[in-house]
């Protein structure tokens, strides 16, 4: 499953994993902005971007083929628009859609695969994202897989009992019932979670993941990641 793999990747050890989450987030955002503002036919730029991403992926010791194939999940959607754009004669834009969407997805994946989500959220909070939103995202991510598994179990159970037999109408109603039960369980779970938090002395925020001090290595990483990209784009 996607998330299990991503969790494993994000907890590996490499020179990139050890960099501060704030620096990685900043580098990724600058990179994304530069990619988004590049004209589609600037080949020199796109080759440089790809080279920087390949280097960043390799230094992070991520399996490059797996990373690429995951980033390519965005391609089918782009192909549809790419083809119509190409047919309508705007070849540059058609290429731009594909290049930018793919490189951007790769960047996002690289960030998520080298930084555990709690650290990424901590960095986002440091940059000023509201604490309530961060808390909601944290809870969402924690229970996302628990609830998805529950939904999957319910689906299997339903399939075992009735299979996909029966009138569409009754199947539809059964699916609605299943969702209602999932909703009820989620509601009760949230209640239980809060009671458990209270009994452990919840003070309004999670124990902080220490962000630590920025080091020279962090600064060097930022420069290495960002300078070539900006240089090739604007010089």
């Amino acid at each position, binding site marked *: 499953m996607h*998330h299990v793999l991503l969790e494993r990747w994000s907890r590996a050890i490499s020179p990139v994993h050890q960099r501060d989450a704030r620096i990685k987030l900043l580098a*990724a955002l600058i990179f*994304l902005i530069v*990619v*988004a503002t590049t004209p589609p036919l600037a080949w020199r730029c796109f080759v440089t971007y790809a080279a920087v991403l390949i280097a960043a992926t390799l230094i992070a010791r991520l399996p490059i083929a797996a990373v690429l194939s*995951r980033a390519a*999940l*965005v391609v089918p*959607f*782009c192909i549809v*628009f790419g083809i*119509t754009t190409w047919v*309508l004669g705007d070849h540059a*834009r058609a290429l*731009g*859609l*594909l*290049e*930018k*969407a793919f490189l*951007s*997805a790769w*960047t*996002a994946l690289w960030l*998520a695969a080298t930084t555990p*989500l709690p650290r990424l959220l901590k960095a986002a909070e440091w940059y000023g994202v*509201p*604490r*309530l*939103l961060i808390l*909601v*995202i944290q*809870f*969402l*991510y924690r229970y*996302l897989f*628990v*609830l*998805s598994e529950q*939904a999957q179990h319910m*689906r299997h159970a339903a399939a075992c009992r009735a299979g*996909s037999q029966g009138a*569409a109408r009754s*199947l*539809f109603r059964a*699916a*609605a*019932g299943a*969702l*209602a039960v*999932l*909703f*009820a369980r*989620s509601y009760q*779970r949230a*209640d239980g*979670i*809060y009671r458990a*938090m209270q009994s452990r002395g*919840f003070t309004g925020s999670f124990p902080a993941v220490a962000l630590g001090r920025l080091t020279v290595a962090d600064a060097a990483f930022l420069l290495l990641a960002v300078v070539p990209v900006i240089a090739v784009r604007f010089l």
Partner: protein
Amino acid sequence: MHIPDGFLSTPIWITLDFAAAGTAGWLARRATTEVDESKIPLLGVMGAFVFAAQMINFPVAPGTSNHLVGGALLAYALGPWAASLVMVAILAIQAFVFQDGGIMALGANTINMALAGVWAATIPYRRFGASRTGIFVGAWLSVMVSGCLALTELLLSGVPIPSALVAASSGVFCVSALIEGAITVAVLQAIERINPGWVRKPVGERNRAAGVFLSTAVVLVVFGVLIASAAPDGLERLAERAGVAHQATTVYKTALADYQIAGFESIWLRKAAAGIAGLAAIYGLCLAIGALLRKRPLADDVVAAGAPELT
């Protein structure tokens, strides 16, 4: 409906990112003072519920199935403030963890789905009450508004979409919006059978006129966008005329300027200006709707993100 990076033109994604960041920040600040600490886990878990709900397929026609989108359901279960915040959290996880929707396009996706989608759902709900009609029309409008906004942003970004494709995708939006309506009605009715307290009754019956006015306005905007997109010639002609006028003044003012560059710049400026103006109009409309709906007491709205005590 998640727009990936690379599709929107720079002026558009920048505008939408700023607009969305401002709105989300304001939303969170309001909610921080209003949401009871005990409701924070509920908001996160409800977001996870919407994710998990995608695993349950609803048979629609033979061979095809569909799943819940969830914006309207969240709005009816948590109230629009909390629902918007939860949707922002969902979109953030989708962009950063699942690469579903771009990071630079997060602002656009937030405006389309977390803000416009959720708030659109509340208008018919307030107008028609928590009846089947109110729920159905609300969920329909929610998906419809999100889809049309996404399509409009792509068109304003200059992604050339032939009118046949615009018409086709509008049709697809309409059908999936109808399905979302049916699913939301069925699920909410089933939830009410388990515990009627979990579905929030619409509040603020008193300004009925405003409800009628707003729902009419939103429907008109949606269809206006559809018609304008299906017949882009009109838009094109308008832009052309504006461009010609602009170019004329440019040439007049800088007689020595390179013709080619002047033309290029005017095209870029024209597109940027048109894009920003259009999106500002849409955004202003969303804000106006929000401001009008905000007149009712906020406290019971957000706090009621919570539950009647479970036993």
